[in-house]
């Protein structure tokens, strides 16, 4: 596969995952608001913090009201990570890699893009019932995954886009856990209260993990939530699961079999994956969850850079045209 196109396919995977996460985050937060007691203010600030764009938000806006928050998260041109920007960039990358995509995948992605643009035109953020819009986007992307799963050959392109998807997912899971955990923990006196339960449920739902948690652990226990989201071997949005699968994709790409590594990206990813494999949740908590997640995010960024260096780098004299995405 052309290096340039491989780069686009990688970012296609990442932006699609980001888009799906954002729509789910907004949908779940919406639902949470419905259950809050009338005297509790809607909480959009934690979600803004979880996306990592808090600073950008407060530079532009004063209040964390619903309309502004949804506009920022979903439609704001000034927010490079907004749903609209992510889906636009996903489609832009897909357009470049168009000859690698199946017709069905391309048309579905294009349809989602047009749907989001339409939402922007209709000023969805001003509507009371916008949750449905975000649910439709989420299901649209999941349908796209489903179509791809049954029609795309398991060759280079597949592994590259999944590599991007898994790394993006690991990053997003770590971020939402980081922020929510901090906000939830101070309410120790409310442990077991309905409000406390609602918040933890919302966190789990944000990563589609509520049902799985219930089946694995039953009652809500913050430490177990951390365990599920960071270290679980079977849950497809746990950081460990994502890193393990990212490593499988990466090895398929470089043709490495068995243990060991054949390039710097594999080395970094393999090291991080093994570290998590031999840790338990007490190690994580005693290290400090925030510090732990922070260092994970930094590592993931390094891995992404190493992947770029090993697979996507374009010849020196054209570095000015290099496709820089983040």
């Amino acid at each position, binding site marked *: *596969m*052309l*290096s*340039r*196109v*491989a780069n686009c396919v990688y970012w296609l995977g990442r932006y699609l995952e980001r888009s799906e996460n954002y729509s789910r985050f907004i949908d779940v937060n919406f639902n949470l608001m419905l259950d809050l007691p009338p005297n509790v203010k809607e909480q959009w600030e934690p979600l803004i913090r979880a996306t990592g764009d808090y600073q950008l938000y407060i530079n532009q806006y004063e209040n964390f009201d619903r309309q502004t928050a949804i506009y920022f998260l979903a439609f704001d041109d000034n927010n490079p990570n907004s749903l609209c920007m992510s889906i636009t960039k996903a489609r*832009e990358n897909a*357009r*470049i890699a*168009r*000859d690698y*995509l199946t*017709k069905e995948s*391309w*048309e579905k992605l*294009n*349809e989602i893009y*047009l749907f989001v643009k339409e939402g922007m035109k209709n000023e969805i953020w001003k509507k009371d019932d916008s949750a449905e819009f975000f649910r439709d986007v989420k299901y649209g992307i999941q349908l796209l995954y489903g179509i791809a799963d049954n029609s795309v050959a398991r060759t*280079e392109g597949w592994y*590259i886009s999944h590599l991007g998807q898994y790394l993006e997912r690991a990053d997003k899971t770590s971020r939402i856990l980081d922020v929510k955990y901090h906000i939830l923990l101070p309410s120790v006196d409310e442990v077991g209260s309905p409000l406390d339960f609602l918040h933890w449920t919302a966190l789990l739902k944000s990563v589609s993990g509520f049902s799985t948690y219930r089946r694995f652990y039953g009652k809500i226990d913050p430490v177990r939530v951390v365990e599920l989201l960071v270290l679980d071997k079977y849950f497809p949005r746990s950081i460990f699961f994502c890193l393990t699968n990212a490593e499988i994709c990466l090895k398929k*790409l470089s043709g490495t079999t068995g243990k060991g590594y054949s390039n710097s990206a594999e080395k970094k990813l393999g090291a991080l994956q093994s570290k998590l494999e031999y840790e338990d949740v007490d190690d994580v908590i005693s290290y400090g969850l925030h510090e732990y997640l922070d260092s994970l995010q930094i590592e993931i960024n390094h891995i992404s850079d190493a992947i770029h260096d090993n*697979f*996507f780098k*374009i*010849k020196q004299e*054209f570095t000015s*045209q290099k496709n820089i995405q983040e």
Partner: protein
Amino acid sequence: MFAADYDSTTHYDEMFAPDGTCRPHYEPFFETLKGVSIEKLKQLQFTTDKAQMAMGMTFNVYHDKQGIEKILHLDIIPRIINAAEWKKIDEGLKQRIYALNLFIDDIYNDQKILKDNVIPAGLIESCPGYLKQCIGLKPPKGIWCHITGTDLIRDRDGEFYVLEDNLRCPSGVSYQLESRELIKRVFPNLFSNLGVSPISDYPIRLLNMLEYVSGKKKPVVGLLTPGIYNSAYFEHSYLAHAMGVELVVGQDLVVKNNRVYMQTTSGHEQIDVLYRRIDDTFLDPLAFNPDSQLGVPGLFQAYKAGQIAIANAPGTGVADDKAVYAYVPRIIKYYLNEEPILANVPTYLCSEKKDRDYVLSHLNELVVKETNAAGGVGMMIGPRASKQEIEMFNKRIRKNPRNYIAQPTLSLSTVPTLSDRQLEPRHVDLRPYVLYGQDIEVIPGAFTRVALRKGSLIVNSSQGGGSKDTWVLQEEHLS
């Protein structure tokens, strides 16, 4: 459904004879139409527009630096051509392309046609499309113009005339292919009954041609595009996808030892054939325009060394010059000793005194065109031009006669087209595609462009033009 004042007498109408009766090859379609309400037609049109958007069948229009994606309006009423008429077009185009290829090869090599004074040497040398770098070039298999999209029009007399040859990088074929898929959904029953020639194998024929010119058994083929901001990017990605070849941009390619390589995730891979969709002078900054960011340094040298085939060959633009166009009937006669099967539009060369004098005294009757322009720019339609425009062209022609030709104002045939509430006649042209590989093949279909504005003769997409699916009926359905 049809406009009460539907006029099939002033221009040649493709569906209705001057007496208002339906032409025989349109009858099955006419019958189908009788069973459909105008509301239903409008709904089908709406669905078609939506589908084009969903398919990403768009081109970019740049306005205030912001790209806007637009669809090329596809009118659902087809343009139908019967087998006998198509046969003439098919034969005429084969003859014309064969002769033009010989002509291009000749003027870059022996220049016999210039030595024999059939065409003035000065005319060729003053063509911007005549590339000195190509002198002495021997392209693989002797083929220069592999892909052609000739523009034809039908005049009042019912005859087809060649308007432009388009031997460089003609676009539109992807719209033709995708339009067919959309229109099939609109009139599913008609297709099986009517015997419409299929065109869906175009990408395979294109690939066969590209493989043939490479001379290799399993060549690596690439389609070279300027990138996603090019207005024809949809077509580039569509064709690469349909052929299963790499869609490359200049920065993907490197030249080492006269060999051209793609940079892939697993290292360098040699490429054997390029279907290039960037202009001649942007191909290689070392050989042509040194400022080109789109091209590949060293590509032309590799090409001359025979290490890569390029379609179309650089230098074909010389035959697109409108002054050279005027000589095509003589070119056919010179190389083939045959009369042209398809006529040229009569053309006055402003570089020749006699012609120029006639043009200058008849500006209000003629269409004046710049010899090296395309896309409907740099032209003046005399009968519709203002005094100031005529005065301006008068000055321009006197100043630089070589840059202008003039032609009589032609009538373009009309086809019923869906307007707001009824079917009205709209003017069309016809662009069939021709592939030159082992044989010359004319694809039995065409990109029909339609001027959507009432009375307008300008079919260019940039100026309010749309398109129609073109049905070429198969021989056995000839009655």
